[in-house]
C-alpha cells in the first residue's frame, strides 16, 4: 500500500515545500528581535539610519482624512502630519507658529490678526493664502460639511449661528485683509483660542481639489495638503502611507522620508507586531501586559501623563443618589484610589481627587479629604453613609454599569469590593456593549453608578469644566447647579487669565462638594517606542508631529 500513500502525500509535500521556500531567504529583511547586535545610533549614538521611515501603530481605521469631517485620535494623528494649522504644537506641547509666522492680538483680546508665511505652499506648489483659510474655516462650520467639531470654533463671531444653519457662512467673523493677512474676530476674549487653532477642525483645505473631487478629495492622488507630509497610499483597514512634502516651507528640517500609520485595532496583536519589529511606536499597550513589559522591555516604555480623567458618575436625577450628596461623597471617600492605580491599572496612572487633570495655567482643586489617610477617609465615609440613612441592616443596593472591557471590569470589581468592605454596600456590576452603554447612560433612567472617562479636546481647564454644566454634552449624571453654571459662563467671558482660572477653580470646588461624579484617576498614555526612534517627547495632549522624529542607525 505504501506507494499510494506516497501519492496521496504528494500535494501535502508540495505545499509544505512551498511554505518553506517562501519563508527562506527573508531573514535578511526581517531580522528577529533577538538577532540585533549593532549599537543604536552607531558610534556617536546620534548617527541616522539610511532609511528614514517611521511606522506608527495608530489604533482604529481613521474615520476620515477630511480635517473638517473627522473625529477621533486615529484621524487627527494623521491629519497633524498632512496638514498644518495656523498654530503648531512643539514636541513638548507648547504653542509655536505654524502656517502663520506671527500674530497680533487686539488689546481687548477679541481681534486676532495672523501674518501668514509667504513661502507656505500646498503640496502641489500653490501658495497658501488668507483666502484659503477663509474658505476653510467657513467650510468647517457649514452644516453641509457635517462636522461634529463645530464647537471648537464657537468663540468666533457668529460661529454657532453659522453651524446651526441660521446664518450664511459669509457672516462668520473671519476675513482676508490681503493675500497673507488673516483676521479672526471673537465675540469675547478667549485666552485658549490659539490652542484651539491646533485642532483639525481649523485646518485649511485646498479649495480647487475640494471643489473638483467633492468628498473624494481625501483619496491618495487627490489630496493636496499643506503639512510636512503628503498622502501617498491609503489601504482601508490596513495602513496609510505618507511621504515627505517637498513643497513644505520647512522641508529642510524634516528628517523622515516616509511615515506609515498602521491600523492596530487589537492591542495584543499590536504588541506582537511591535515585538516583531513591524512597528516603531505603538498606539497603546494591553493593560494586562504591563507587568511583562516592565520585566522585559521597560526601557521602551513611553508612558506619560495624559489630559484625561477616569471617573464614575452618579445618576442624580433618581433615587438613591438624587438630592443625596452625603451618600455620593461617602461612596467616593470609600474608594482607595491608590490601590486602583497601584494594583489594578498599574501603568502609572495618578490617583484623582479632583475633576480637572493637571493643565496649563490652572491649579487643580481637590476634595478636602485628599490629604487624609485612607483610614480617615473610610471613617468619614461611614459617618456620611450613616447620615444618609444607611446601615448594616439597611445597606445601599446599587449597580455599577460599565462598557464591556476587561480593564473596566477589573476596576468595577475593585470599587464594588471596597464599598462592600468599608460601608457594607451591596453593589452589582453590569456591562453593556459600547453603543448600547452610551444610549443607556444618556437616557439616565436605568443607570445608577456608571463608568465614564473624558479626554480633553484642548489644553485648558474649560474642556473639562464645560462638560458638567446643565445639559452639557457628557453630563450623564443629570447634574444641574446654577452656581456652577454661572461660574463657568462667567469664566468664558473673563479676559484676565488669573481671574478666569480663579472662577473655574471655584466651579470645581462646588463640583467636588456636590460630587455628581467621582474622579478615580488621571490617565497616562502608554505607548512603546523602539530605541532607535528619536524626537519623541511626551506631552499632555499626546499630540506628536512626525516632522520632529528621526530614525537612528540600528
Amino acid at each position, binding site marked *: *500500500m505504501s506507494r*499510494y*500513500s506516497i501519492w*496521496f*502525500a504528494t*500535494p*501535502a509535500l*508540495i*505545499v509544505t515545500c512551498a*511554505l518553506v521556500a*517562501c*519563508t527562506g531567504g*527573508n*531573514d535578511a529583511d526581517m*531580522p*528577529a528581535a*533577538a538577532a540585533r547586535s549593532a549599537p543604536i545610533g552607531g558610534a556617536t549614538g546620534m548617527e541616522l539610519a539610511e532609511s528614514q521611515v517611521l511606522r506608527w501603530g495608530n489604533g*482604529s*481605521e481613521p*474615520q*476620515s*482624512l*477630511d480635517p473638517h*469631517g*473627522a473625529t477621533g485620535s486615529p484621524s487627527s494623528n494623521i491629519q497633524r502630519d498632512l496638514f498644518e494649522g495656523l498654530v503648531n504644537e512643539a514636541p513638548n506641547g507648547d504653542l509655536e507658529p505654524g502656517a502663520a509666522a506671527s500674530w497680533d492680538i487686539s488689546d481687548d483680546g477679541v481681534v486676532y490678526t495672523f501674518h501668514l508665511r509667504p513661502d507656505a505652499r500646498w503640496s502641489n506648489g500653490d501658495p497658501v493664502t488668507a483666502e484659503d483659510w477663509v474658505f476653510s474655516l467657513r467650510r468647517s462650520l457649514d*452644516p453641509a460639511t*457635517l*462636522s*461634529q467639531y*463645530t*464647537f471648537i470654533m464657537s468663540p468666533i463671531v457668529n460661529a454657532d449661528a453659522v*453651524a*446651526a*444653519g441660521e446664518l450664511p457662512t459669509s457672516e462668520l467673523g473671519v476675513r482676508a485683509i490681503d493675500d497673507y493677512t488673516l483676521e479672526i474676530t471673537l465675540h469675547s476674549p478667549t485666552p485658549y483660542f490659539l490652542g484651539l487653532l491646533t485642532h483639525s477642525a481649523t485646518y485649511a483645505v485646498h479649495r480647487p481639489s475640494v471643489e473638483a473631487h467633492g*468628498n*473624494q478629495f481625501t*483619496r491618495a492622488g487627490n489630496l493636496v495638503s499643506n503639512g510636512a507630509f503628503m498622502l501617498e497610499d491609503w*489601504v*482601508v*483597514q*490596513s*495602513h496609510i502611507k505618507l511621504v515627505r512634502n517637498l513643497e513644505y516651507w520647512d522641508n529642510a528640517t524634516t528628517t523622515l522620508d516616509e511615515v506609515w500609520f*498602521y*491600523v492596530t485595532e*487589537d492591542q*495584543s*496583536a499590536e504588541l*506582537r*507586531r511591535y515585538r*516583531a519589529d*513591524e512597528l516603531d511606536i505603538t498606539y497603546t499597550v494591553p493593560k494586562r501586559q504591563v507587568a511583562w513589559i516592565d520585566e522585559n522591555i521597560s526601557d521602551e516604555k513611553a508612558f506619560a501623563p495624559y489630559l484625561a480623567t477616569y471617573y464614575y458618575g452618579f445618576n442624580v436625577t433618581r433615587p438613591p443618589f438624587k438630592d443625596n450628596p452625603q451618600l455620593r461623597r461617602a461612596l467616593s471617600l470609600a474608594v482607595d484610589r491608590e490601590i486602583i492605580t497601584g494594583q489594578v491599572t498599574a501603568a502609572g496612572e495618578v490617583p484623582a481627587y479632583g475633576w480637572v487633570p493637571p493643565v496649563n495655567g490652572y491649579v487643580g482643586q481637590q476634595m478636602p479629604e485628599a490629604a487624609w489617610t485612607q483610614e480617615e477617609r473610610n471613617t468619614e465615609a461611614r459617618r456620611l453613609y450613616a447620615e444618609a440613612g444607611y446601615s448594616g441592616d439597611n445597606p445601599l443596593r446599587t449597580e455599577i454599569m460599565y462598557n464591556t472591557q476587561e480593564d473596566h471590569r477589573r476596576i468595577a470589581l475593585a470599587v464594588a469590593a471596597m464599598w462592600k468592605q468599608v460601608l457594607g454596600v451591596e453593589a452589582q456590576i453590569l456591562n453593556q*456593549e*459600547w*453603543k*448600547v452603554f*452610551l*444610549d443607556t447612560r*444618556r437616557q439616565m433612567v436605568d443607570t445608577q453608578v456608571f463608568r465614564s472617562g473624558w479626554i480633553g479636546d484642548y489644553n485648558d481647564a474649560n474642556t473639562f469644566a464645560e462638560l458638567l454644566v446643565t445639559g452639557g*454634552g*457628557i453630563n450623564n449624571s443629570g447634574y444641574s447647579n446654577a452656581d456652577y453654571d454661572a461660574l463657568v459662563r462667567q469664566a468664558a467671558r473673563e479676559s484676565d487669565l488669573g481671574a478666569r482660572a480663579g472662577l473655574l477653580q471655584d466651579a470645581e470646588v462646588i463640583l467636588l462638594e456636590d460630587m455628581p461624579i467621582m474622579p478615580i484617576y488621571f490617565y497616562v498614555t502608554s505607548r512603546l517606542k523602539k530605541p532607535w526612534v528619536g524626537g519623541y517627547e511626551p506631552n499632555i495632549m499626546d499630540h506628536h508631529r512626525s516632522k520632529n522624529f528621526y530614525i537612528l542607525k540600528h
Partner: protein
Amino acid sequence: MLRYTLRRVLGAIPTLLILIALAFFMIRLAPGGPFDAERALLPEIEANLRATYHLDEPLPMQFARYLGGLVRGDFGPSFQYRDYTVTELIMTGFPVSLRIGLGAMVVALLFGVSVGSLAALRQNSRTDYTVMAMSMTGISIPNFVMAPILILIFAVYLGWLPAGGLGDGAIRNLILPVVSLALPQIAYIARLTRGSMIEVLRSPFIRTAKAQGLPQAKILLRHALKPALLPIVSYLGPATAAVITGSVVIEQIFGVPGLGRFFVQGALNRDYTLVMGVVVFYGVLIVFANLLVDLAYAWLDPKVKYA
C-alpha cells in the same frame, strides 16, 4: 441542467429578500446609533446628520429607499468611513478575503484529503492514529487561540514571517492567516475523507476491480476517489460559511483588511449601510456557493440528475 440552475437562481430571490429585511430591521433595533459618541452631538448637528443619511424618515420608507439602491447596485455611503461608499469598501475588502479564503480552502482540501486518505489506507496503523489525534486537536483548538501561538512562534521568536498586516500583498503576509484559517478545516476534511474512503474501499465494486487485477493506483484514483469525495463536496458549503466567519476573527488578529473586519467594525460602529452591504454580499455568495456544490454533485454522483 440550465433550467434547474435558473430555477435555483430565481428561488434565491425571496431568500435574499428575507435576509435583507431581517438584517435591515435588526441592526436598527440594536440600541445606540451611528452618531452616538462619548460626547453628545449638538442637537442641530445630529438632526442635520440624520437628515443627510435619511435616518429621519419612517423605517418602511428607508427600507424602500435601500432596496431601490440595491437594485441599482448602490449600497449607499458608509456612515463611519465618510470618505468611502460601501461598494468601494466591499471592493477593497473582498479581494483580500477571497485570497485568504480561497487559499485556506485549497490548503485545507489538499492537506485534508491527502492525510485523510493516508489514514484510510493505513487504517488502525500508527499513521492513522497520529493523523486522527492531530485532527482532533485541530478541531478542538479554536483559531483565535491557534493564530496568536503561530504568530509568537513564526513572527516573534523565529522572525520568519510578518506578525500581521497585508504589507504589499506578498505571499509571506498571507501564510499565517491562511494556515490559521485552514487548520480546523484540514482536520474536518481529513476525518471526513478517512471515513468515506474506508467505506468506499470496502464496497463491492472496488473488490470487483481488484479481482479483475487492475493496478491499485488506478483503482484508487479512477474508482475510489470520486465517490469518496462526495461527503467532502457536500461539506464545501458549510466549509465556505465556516471560512467566511472564521476570517472575521483571523482578519482581526492579523490586521488584514478583509471584509470580515468591515463587518465587525460596522456592527460595533452601528454603520448600518456597511453591515447591510457585507450581509447582502455574503448572502449572495453563500447562496451561489451552495448552488455550485449541488451542481458539482450531479457531476460526481451518477445517481443525481437535475431535470
